[in-house]
């Protein structure tokens, strides 16, 4: 069979298009990336995660600066969360982390509040000040319980 160069070119373009689509999906949509390598890694320990998941965003004043890389159980049976942050960030040593909710029932994410310590956090440091997730169910339970006792007191 005689080769037609135009057809071979079309096949080449098709393969490039397909590979480009796979690359776009895995890099832009899937979130695989090499640029995050060499980021600032911090560890924070929490008593209650309340449904925090890996790849949840980490924000400062609402601006995304990183994401949750790993969640595990520490030696003291507290949740150990590894954060992957923008390497250009200079965070004071008394920065605190809290787990908050987007809206009433939305996704959990981590918000960082900066302190005033002149010392800076280095790669691999642990955040000492953390605030755990507020569980709505537990809060409601407490509220109902308290209402019950106040009713008895008023009678």
């Amino acid at each position, binding site marked *: 069979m005689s080769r037609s160069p135009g057809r071979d070119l079309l096949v080449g373009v098709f*393969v490039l298009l397909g590979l480009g689509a796979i690359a776009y*999906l895995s890099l832009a949509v899937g979130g695989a990336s090499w640029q995050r390598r060499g980021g600032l890694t911090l560890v924070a320990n929490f008593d209650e995660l309340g449904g925090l998941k890996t790849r949840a965003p980490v924000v400062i004043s609402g601006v995304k600066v990183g994401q949750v890389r790993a969640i595990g159980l520490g030696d003291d049976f507290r949740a150990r969360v590894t954060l992957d942050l923008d390497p250009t960030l200079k965070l004071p040593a008394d920065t605190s982390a809290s787990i908050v909710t987007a809206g009433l029932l939305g996704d959990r994410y981590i918000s960082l509040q900066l302190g005033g310590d002149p010392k800076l956090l280095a790669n691999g440091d642990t955040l000492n000040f953390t605030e755990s997730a507020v569980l709505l169910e537990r809060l409601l339970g407490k509220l109902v319980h308290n209402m019950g006792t106040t009713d008895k007191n008023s009678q």
Partner: protein
Amino acid sequence: MVDAVRRLGAATSGTISDLGAMARFLLKVVRDALTPPWRLLNVVDEVYKLGVLSLLIICVCGLAVGMVLGLQGYNTLERFGATQSLGAVVGLSLVRELGPVLTALLVTGRAGSATAAEIGTMVATEQLDGLRMMSVDPVDYVVAPRAVAMLLVMPLLTALFIVCGIAGGWLVGVRLLGVDAGAYMTSLEHAIDLRDDLAGSLVKALVFGVLVGWIATYRGYTSAPTSAGVSAATTATVVVASVSVLIFDYLITALWGV
């Protein structure tokens, strides 16, 4: 009564020997594809026929499916005031299920049937016997390049289908219905995981590529050398390949754990 039992037995052993013949055929195709001569130019020609010529239908269908997902998803999410998550709905449905499955079904109809008919006609017109007379193995020369091309083409077409679908959802959701463009892409990126979703999607596409290529070439190769035989082979290809794609989709989803 005894006759019915005998017929059941014949049907059972017939099915089993058919499956065995298919497995031996697959082994031979794999061996011929992996040992030289590799017939790379034949594979390129088949990639053109199976892939390039399917490109338009894949892109158009992807766009249409994405647009429908955008519209349906928006109408449902609007009730809960959660239209911000439209990107996640469109993206997850496309990546996990619709992309690989619909691409496999479309390729079965567009290219699998053509492959079976082509090989079947070669059987009917004794072209394969001609090859054998020249001591060219027809499985090596005709069948293996087609099966390899099907395996290569399926992941590429699936990825293109998904990208077109995401674009279609974006067109309807963002352009038409006024969802925020940033919210659409952010929820999409946030929902789709590389290992769980995208890798699973490509595994599905590869398995479907093997399935469709295998069934189409086997049915064509074993078709009766008559015009009725070729038409029966083509029909059987589309039916068997579509059903097994859907069954294997469930199995992969259950095993992959997504």
